[in-house]
């Protein structure tokens, strides 16, 4: 069992109705975290988190990164105490 911290920014904050949360995971995998997030926050979160075609994390207009700023994907391992941040991927304007 590991503990993973999540941060939700802008639209994700709205969908989760909180800006951070903690998940206890049995399997130390991003896919496990994604499932748990969808369970906790419902179908709208799922719609933006998971690409229905590929079952990968949705990359369109989003940016999900670890504490070092690397984009994460479903197969990535997680460790106790990891912080994952969910953001909108926008630049310029």
């Amino acid at each position: 069992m590991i503990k993973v911290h999540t941060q939700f920014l802008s639209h994700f904050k709205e969908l989760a109705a909180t800006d951070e949360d903690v998940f206890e995971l049995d399997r130390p995998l991003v896919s496990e975290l994604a499932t748990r997030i969808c369970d906790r926050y419902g179908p709208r979160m799922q719609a933006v988190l998971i690409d229905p075609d590929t079952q990968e994390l949705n990359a369109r207009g989003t940016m999900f990164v670890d504490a070092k700023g690397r984009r994460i994907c479903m197969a990535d391992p997680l460790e106790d105490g990891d912080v994952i941040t969910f953001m909108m991927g926008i630049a310029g304007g």
Partner: protein
Amino acid sequence: MESRLLRVNLTTGEMKGETIPHSIFERWIGGSGVNNWIMWEHFLTHDINCDPRGPDNIFVFGVGPLAGTGAGSGIKGRITFKSPCYNMFGDSAGGGKFPYYARFSGYEYIAITGKAPKPVYLLICNGEVALIDAAHLWGKGTEDTHAILQEELGDYPSKVHTLSISQAGENQVGIAGVVSDALRIHARGGGGAVLGSKNLKAIAVQGNGGLPVARPGEMLAWSDDFRKKIDGNEAIYGFKRRGTLGAVEMYQHIGSHFWRNNQGNKFRGDEIRSDNWVKKFQKYSEVCSSDCFIACDSKYVIDGTESEPSKKYIGETFRRPEYLTTGSAAGALDVRDWSEVAHWGKITNDYAIDNQDLSCSISFLMELKQRDLISNHDVAELFGHEQSLRWGNMDDIEACVESIVFQKNLFGVMFRDGPYFGALKYSEMKGKNFMKYAMYGKGGASFTEEVRPYPTWMNNMAVASRGADHLKGIGLIEKFQREDLSKMYFNGRTEAADLTIPDLKGACTALAENQVALLNSYGVCLFHWMLDPAEFTPQDYYGKAYAAVTGIERTPEELMRDGERICNLEKAFNSRVGMRREHDMVCERWMWEPNSEGLYEGAVGADMFNTVLDEYYEWRGWEKESGLQTRARLEELGMEDVADVLAKDGALALT
């Protein structure tokens, strides 16, 4: 596909309509591509080294074929000219209602040369044209100018829509832009100064003509599909709510803001670092341009309860700040109150002035002051009186803005062409080298986001045809680490998505430039593509809409070559005015100073700069040593005629 072009010679008052034949669209797609060609042809018979503020410069307005035909991607007009502030290629896109209605007025392209003896405005109404005295408009801001023209021209045969300049344009300030309907600005490059130098205050359009669509049924089906794809994407819904302000929290987290002239990478101030403001103060809806399925823009009204500073602006209403409005105020200038950021957006728009050039000019001076490199006496010398120049102080900031707009004092005169030339002149005047604190690339002001951790963006700042510029080649693959896109475009290779290595970064710049050139030529907004670059590809997905509207059939590969051709014409223009590899560079801070905050702390531009630049030239097929184009590549692109012109000017690679 055919379009109407209006040629106006303001010196003689002669106005002539002509048809742009199908063959031009075959070669240049439309919009910015066609604009570029009109300008290129102009400078075959006029001296390309002319004074951009003189009568020989040309100002071209155009709007691409997908605009207003149900493509649902917004409508972006394009102005093209020789830039008075950077003295090279200049163009700028803008939304609003003007480009939409220009299409129904009878002329989709307008080319303006010469200089009117006295201030005038141009009216186009269902193919009829007139130059009308503008004495009553001279000296007015864009909001007033638009209101007066709407009042005076009435609602028939359609509402009046305008493109106008402010006092800054009249004063030929190099960083002055042109505003569409007093709402959306064509900011970059100094189009306002060109119109000001020609004594043309505004262009007004009216009309109820239609637009040809080759296959309406097919276009409708495409439109339906596009809408469904947008609606099925929750992330786009998130974007719809916030627009580009959605980037505020992301950049705060990863450390990509441009704080205090890019000395730091995070906003300070509790309120300013989150986009809660959107929810709190986004009161009414309005949209940036017509025919958009996303509609990311909205309006605010300040009621004085938002914060202490907001009491100064009770009742003020304008568009909600964009990210770069915020990046320039809350970032570059360290303004910490949202109502002040919004007010900054409003005044820069009303004065029709580029807020990137403006903020980088002001933040340059503020940093000199912060570091005690200049004394109060030096500041008084620039302003004619004491000016405290405190970070984030709106009184100081507005004093600087007005200095430039109204050319009030030495500071205004010195920085009328943006931070690079301003810093050069000031360094010379003081006999000291202050260039370390000027933020620029290729002579153009930096855009107010961090670029050091992103090699493609850095490269883009160095090579963009109109000076440091994110909108000429948005590097989505690397910034958002999109391995899927890297594989899609580079035969399964993933390096383009890895920020830490230089591989494929120059290639990414070239790729993005080609794609952006296509979208700009279609006359649509870049954001639909940016939100889903794997799906809404300019060469494939939009290519289908282009075919439905124009009847011009193209494979995705052919369209990518069309995009490349458009980029090459812009490059050729700059080569003709003498730009070479040494001009493709960025400022010292980006090159040598590591960035100081956030997840990508410690990135230094110079680490990868030259490797990436070499690779960019390689992918472009240009000569590395000189940065010049080669005849071989130009001929491959069907640009023999351009190669001949370059050869004559000694601006073609010798190899």
